[in-house]
């Protein structure tokens, strides 16, 4: 039940377009006691169905820059293979520390970045 609640909270944040994963992972680690790598795999897997759902909408609205997508995806895939192998081979505690450093940078960015997007699209609807 607690796990579902954590999922719910991170879902709300993702639904608002603020990366939910960067909060889901520490919440699982601290509140549920999940191992760092498992928490990360949960975030990766949970992202998949919601991304597919979101993409269906975006494809219809022609929001995807296809040329850019292909270029970014090529090196992106390479990076993700290397990153994933590192993640599964690093010790849990070490990975947690690295994640902490990453989270710190992201947190500072969230606080200091002034929102260029303003309150943009109130026509999000449905």
């Amino acid at each position: 039940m607690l796990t579902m609640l954590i999922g719910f909270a991170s879902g709300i944040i993702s639904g608002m377009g603020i990366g939910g994963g960067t909060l889901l992972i520490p919440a699982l680690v601290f509140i549920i006691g999940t191992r760092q790598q498992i928490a990360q795999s949960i975030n990766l897997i949970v992202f998949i169905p919601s991304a597919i759902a979101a993409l269906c909408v975006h494809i219809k609205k022609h929001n995807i820059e296809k040329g850019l997508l292909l270029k970014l995806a090529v090196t992106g895939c390479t990076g993700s293979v290397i990153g994933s192998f590192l993640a599964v081979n690093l010790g849990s505690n070490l990975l947690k520390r690295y994640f902490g450093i990453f989270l710190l940078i992201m947190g500072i960015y969230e606080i200091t970045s002034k929102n260029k997007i303003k309150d943009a699209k109130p026509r999000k609807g449905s």
Partner: protein
Amino acid sequence: MKKNASIAKIALIGFIAGLVNGIFGSGGGTILVPCLVFLMDIEDHKAHATAISIILPLSLISSFIYFKYNVVDLPLTLKVAIGSVLGALAGSSMLNRISVNVLRKIFGIFMIVAALRMVL
């Protein structure tokens, strides 16, 4: 829309987003969206959409590797997934009523606190 984003720059951004997304299981979008908006002049909603379309294959690859190394807990994943889908629906419908800017700051503080606990 994009101006003179060189191939090298695009390649590097893609690589870093993939690397981070793989090693930390998150954060690819947090890196991609500002890069697309600020470095490549993509409109915000298109940047979000394009970022998702890039991270989906990256997450599939990473999930596969995590899976192969048995770094998964499916029952726990399912519970989080159910909560998350409901949350996402709630979140996107609240979008017009809550200041995302204020939320961003609040979550930024949460992130920093969590980060310090993880590092120290």
